[in-house]
């Protein structure tokens, strides 16, 4: 029972409310924090397993110094911009309508032309918007008069990344699980989302580097004795480099030894066009 009369108290009482799906985690919020800090900063070697694709280019263990961008973090409701049926599935109501994104995090910075969206319902990175590009409605060019060459030029989507496919996270068997959002915390100004996916307790940190041209996504997973898998949309794979794990098609398999930290680095800018060959 609580005494509701405000009193001038010292900071020696217990931490906050304990109702939580993480019985060991919540009363010990600080303990949870310490675990992740211990796990951080370590890049673990990842063997290539038989039958798997060759590992992708990986972030080196001593990456060049990169300056994180000071982030502006807000939560807001937004019209659902997803278009892929599987990605929309968690937002579909029983009557079939698609709900707004009401638990959305928007991460950006005044100096960066990108807005990063992460949602607490599906517990996934939903997309990255290039705010300098026209919106999707505007990007659809009007049809030219009929009779001519009807090559329609459409502007590129303003979304550099847009989620598609089922939930990104799965256990070692690849079986999907409905994620349950727990909360988020700030680590050096970077949001770290905490959620469970089946038996896995996931910490997912998002931030921007290199003037906002690189998006970083760090996963740290507890209770992953057999590792875990991350399924990315096919279009994202060409933009991403990972610090650990092996690819098979669009699925990154992370072994247990690397579960403490896997960093995905997304290039948000388009590649420079190849220089024209001249003799």
């Amino acid at each position, binding site marked *: *029972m609580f005494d509701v009369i405000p009193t001038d*108290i*010292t900071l*020696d*009482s217990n931490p906050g409310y304990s109702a939580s799906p993480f019985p060991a985690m919540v009363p010990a919020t600080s303990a949870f924090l310490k675990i992740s800090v211990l796990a951080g900063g370590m890049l673990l070697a990842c063997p290539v397993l038989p039958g798997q694709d060759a590992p992708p280019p990986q972030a080196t263990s001593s990456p060049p110094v990169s300056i994180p961008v000071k982030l502006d*973090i807000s939560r807001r409701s937004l019209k659902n911009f997803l278009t892929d049926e599987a990605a929309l599935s968690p937002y579909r109501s029983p009557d079939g309508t698609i709900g707004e994104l009401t638990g959305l995090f928007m991460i950006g910075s005044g100096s960066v032309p990108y807005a990063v969206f992460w949602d*607490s319902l599906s517990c996934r990175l939903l997309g990255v918007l290039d705010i300098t590009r026209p919106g999707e409605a505007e990007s659809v060019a009007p049809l030219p008069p009929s009779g001519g060459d009807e090559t329609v030029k459409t502007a590129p989507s303003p979304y550099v990344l847009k989620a598609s496919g089922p939930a990104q996270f799965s256990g070692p068997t690849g079986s999907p699980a409905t994620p349950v959002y727990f909360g988020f*915390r700030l680590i050096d100004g970077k949001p770290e989302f905490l959620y469970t996916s089946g038996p896995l307790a996931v910490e997912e940190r998002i931030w921007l580097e290199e003037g906002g041209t690189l998006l970083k996504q760090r996963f740290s997973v507890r209770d992953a004795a057999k590792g875990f898998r991350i399924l990315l949309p096919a279009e994202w794979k060409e933009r991403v480099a990972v610090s650990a794990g092996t690819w098979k098609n669009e699925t990154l398999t992370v072994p247990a030894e690397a579960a403490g930290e896997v960093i995905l680095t997304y290039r948000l800018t388009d590649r420079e066009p190849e220089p024209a060959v001249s003799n």
Partner: protein
Amino acid sequence: MVLASLPYAGYSQTDSTAVDTNPPESKERPFVTLNPTDQVPQVRAIIPMDGANVFFLNHRGQIGAAKFSPGLSQIGWDLYSEIKLNALPSLALGPNYSILTASENELTQAFDSDKNAQLDFFQALLQDWPGRGKGVTITAGPVADQWGRIILALSPGSLNEGQPARARLVAWHPEHKKLVTVTESELLIDAFAINRDGLVASRLHMADYKDGYFVSLTDLPSFDSKQPDASPDPMPFTLPSLVIPAELTKNDPPVQLCFAHEGGKEKLLLPCPKSKHLIEILPEKLGNIWQGSILLRGKTERPVESIVEMSSGVILGGGSEGFVPLSGLSEPYRIMRITLAKDGVILFFNRSIDRFEGSKPENYSVKAIALNGGETTLAVVPVIESDGKAVILKTNAISAGTVLRVVCQNLPSEKGETLLSSAAFYTVHRR
């Protein structure tokens, strides 16, 4: 630069609460450095820590801390969190200077886990409730009650097929898993406040009714810690108890509610930010029915969206142009209260009235507006009390189920001041 200690008050916990698995914490108190600033916080909600410090929610959804002198002069403020939450305009205090906020879809508790006077951990305490999958959302709250529960208002929803859709006030207790409905309402609850005795005052949403704004007063059933998950039986039903006429607010809906104490009486204050009118309700209970006077308390210089009582009778407001002290100011000449008498009504004023004008019956108009439609004008005979601060208006019988509209057309004070509002109202449910 002012170093303001934040004597952040929270609920102190007893030994029966969760086991602390953390290492012993420092007993040093955190400080927020309040730098001099000309910037004015845009305040949407306030929660006092004590008589001098508050947390507030600004228009961008950020939580700040502000310090005041005993006379409510603002000493300084700073952000306690830069995160922009999608929060409803209400804050509640948790243990260890944590702050509870709610969005339509989540009850969130924010902690300063590393004790650097910045919130850095935001836990989703509640994301599911009855009807959540059918579009039921949080419409108001969080508000803490005297039993340590967090009360939230949910939008109307039908829990079982065939049942009418009802809005609900639900209670969440940190030690108990089940969310308990504590009252039901046919109308959506826009805002609510709870006093120390468990009386809930709710602003009910009635979009089609333009002549006034409904407030309900409902006694919360006592919390039985031995049966924490038990729903009240019978379930209290929130009915519109009082009507704030739109003419008193200049058609501007009151946005929040606050219980305050002055002159030994408990009042309910409601700000109307656009018109800058401040409404005062003096609730009275007859049997199990609430009724009472509805008055214009003042017109503020700056808009007020949120009001808190810092300590008994010390009232602070806040709005888009910063904090606004609402007590200790010179009070305009006004009607302070209406009470029912056997043979009419009694008007109380805060200054002696002009006896010459006050004795003229034509300077008064009393109408009984039936709650179910129709109105009657009552003939009045004024009798001025000896101190000149009360007038008995003898009338014909006043029936229950009416709103009394009393207008004093030309009733200056003894010193010639004009009434702040010539109109005052009383909702009569029972005689």
